């Protein structure tokens, strides 16, 4: 799947390429190197080549600038990892990248930590669209860490965990006795 930073960077590079072509055609149309004396013609052609080189750097530079600006480096990579649809694959990649690193890169702010070790975070990577993310341990797979998004109106970590299993927070805290 094409990531958002890659898409934005590709669009930027395309715009940069169009500008480069426009600049280059304008330069070549306005200068007639062949009508100049031989020595001047050589220098003129050299200048045209240099202008082509300079303008051709524009789309490449725009690609990398936009890729970085839209989070392709650091935060964007972390967002991609926590958004992987398969929970096991997500957990493995989170472990490989480092959960603390991911939370730092996504600017996650802890909202609640429960006695059962569940942690609820708010992630503000998208302007005016705060996301709630739950980090929890699996009781039997050697405390392997898992994470998933939960509805944005969730207030506590245990409420989030209860929502995942369609039970109330009270049921989760009091009645969920056997966990493996």
């Amino acid at each position: 799947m094409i990531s958002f930073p890659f898409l934005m960077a590709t669009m930027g590079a395309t715009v940069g390429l169009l500008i480069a072509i426009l600049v280059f055609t304008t330069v070549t149309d306005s200068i007639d190197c062949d009508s100049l004396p031989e020595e001047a013609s050589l220098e003129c052609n050299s200048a045209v080549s240099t202008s082509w080189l300079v303008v051709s750097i524009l789309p490449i530079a725009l690609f990398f600038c936009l890729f970085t600006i839209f989070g392709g480096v650091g935060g964007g990579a972390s967002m991609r990892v926590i958004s992987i649809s398969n929970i096991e694959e997500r957990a493995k990649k989170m472990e490989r990248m480092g959960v603390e690193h991911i939370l730092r890169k996504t600017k996650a702010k802890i909202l609640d930590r429960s006695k059962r070790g569940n942690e609820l975070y708010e992630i503000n990577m998208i302007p005016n669209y705060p996301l709630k993310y739950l980090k929890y341990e699996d009781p039997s797979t050697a405390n392997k860490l898992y994470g998933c998004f939960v509805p944005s109106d969730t207030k506590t970590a245990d409420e989030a965990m209860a929502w995942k299993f369609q039970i109330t927070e009270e049921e989760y805290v009091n009645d969920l006795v056997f966990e493996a």
Partner: protein
Amino acid sequence: MATPIDPKRTLRRQGDILFKPISVIPQYAEKMEGNIVAHGESGNLHQTSGGQVQLFRKKHDTTDLFSPRPELAKVQDPLQVDYLEVHQDTVLMHEEHNKIDLPKGKYVVVHEREWNPFALEADRIRQVID
């Protein structure tokens, strides 16, 4: 002093599956063969060992013909177990998770879900895939 466990309220969870005791299996449920309660993409199974169990799933049309966009109607996973009746105590096994005991009784099988904030509003709640 520890609070005594009430079997009628006690919830049991193994990974992405939770068992909640119920008094009756709904009439719209239909029986299923076998002892596999849930199966993951990775090939790991939640399956009962020993005892005697009967699996059930919700019986309904696999497509919603009244949907304004029938091509988007959700197709029910034919292997998804929604209810479980344990006639004789059993044990639920899984390759990665510890086993859990399932005493005699009737249960609704709740599959773990999560929120997808990047999906369209109607598709934001999805079942966890493992």
